[in-house]
């Protein structure tokens, strides 16, 4: 009983956070400062996800392998602007760096 109440409440709360901004329809135009903020928001959130992922994995601070591989991803993405190439290189880089003990 306690399990189902917890899961359903967690699911509803999560869904409300995902859906409310999408369900709302703004009338008129947003003020310039809000447009500017929303314009910068996507990159900031994705960068925050990347930073958090590089810093800690499975509750442990990550080592040099993740930082090195992240730099390889950044370099590859800046060079070719190809998502699949950059991700593939990153996965290979992190496996190789972990194999050599970083």
């Amino acid at each position, binding site marked *: 009983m306690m399990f189902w109440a917890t899961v359903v409440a967690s699911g509803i709360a*999560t869904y409300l956070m995902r859906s409310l901004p999408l369900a709302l329809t703004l009338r008129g135009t947003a003020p310039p400062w809000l447009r500017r*903020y*929303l314009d910068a928001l996507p990159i900031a959130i994705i*960068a925050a996800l990347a930073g*958090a992922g590089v*810093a800690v994995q499975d509750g442990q601070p990550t080592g040099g392998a993740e930082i090195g591989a992240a730099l390889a991803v950044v370099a590859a993405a800046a060079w070719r602007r190809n998502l699949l190439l950059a991700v593939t290189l990153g996965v290979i880089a992190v496996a190789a760096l972990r194999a050599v003990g970083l």
Partner: protein
Amino acid sequence: MTPGRAAIIEGWPVFVTALVVGTAFGLTARQSGLTVVETSATSLIVFAGASQFVMVDLLRTGAPAPLIVLTVVLLNARHLLMAAAIRPFVGSVSLARRLGLAYVLTDEAFAMGVGWFRRGHRDLTYFTVFGSLMWCAWNAGTLMGAVFGADVQDPQRYGIDFAITAVFAAIVVIGVRHRADAVIAVVAVLVAAGLRLAGASAVAVVVAGALAPVLSFALGESRE
């Protein structure tokens, strides 16, 4: 290439990761004492990776329900920001479609979708296909882990666990349009990493993601 095909071709490393991590979730939940039905229901109802692991851990240790729900809210508060950020791209499609898109709005779908929009595309097919396949991979993985309970090959050995972080990093680099974007991205990376290392895992992404764009007022560059 059609948007749907692009979503599959670019998304497959993320789907593989979701399948593997979903299997790990299924295993963990079963070992924590949940039934197969309860385990799958968690993935179907909550559908938010990291917070599900935290939920199962708190359930196992007997935490009170309100505390568990509050923790999940803090962990997933970043989705409010994500939904607000993609609202302009969603435009005026029907409310039912928007509510459907909200259900498959995960970190990965958000990042891949923004990556697509930043390349000048305006269709919602890419996001829809990617989000739906993520949902399939996560729930299929959960069910496999819960039912079979077989050993999962150690994902760290192949570096596949790093794929999601690599996707985020690459999308930022490809999506940066001018100096202000780059400064905001670097600040967000450092704030999120610092908060997470300091132990503030639940709020690291939402705080860094909400604060860094404030810099756009100070950086004062003309847009576009």
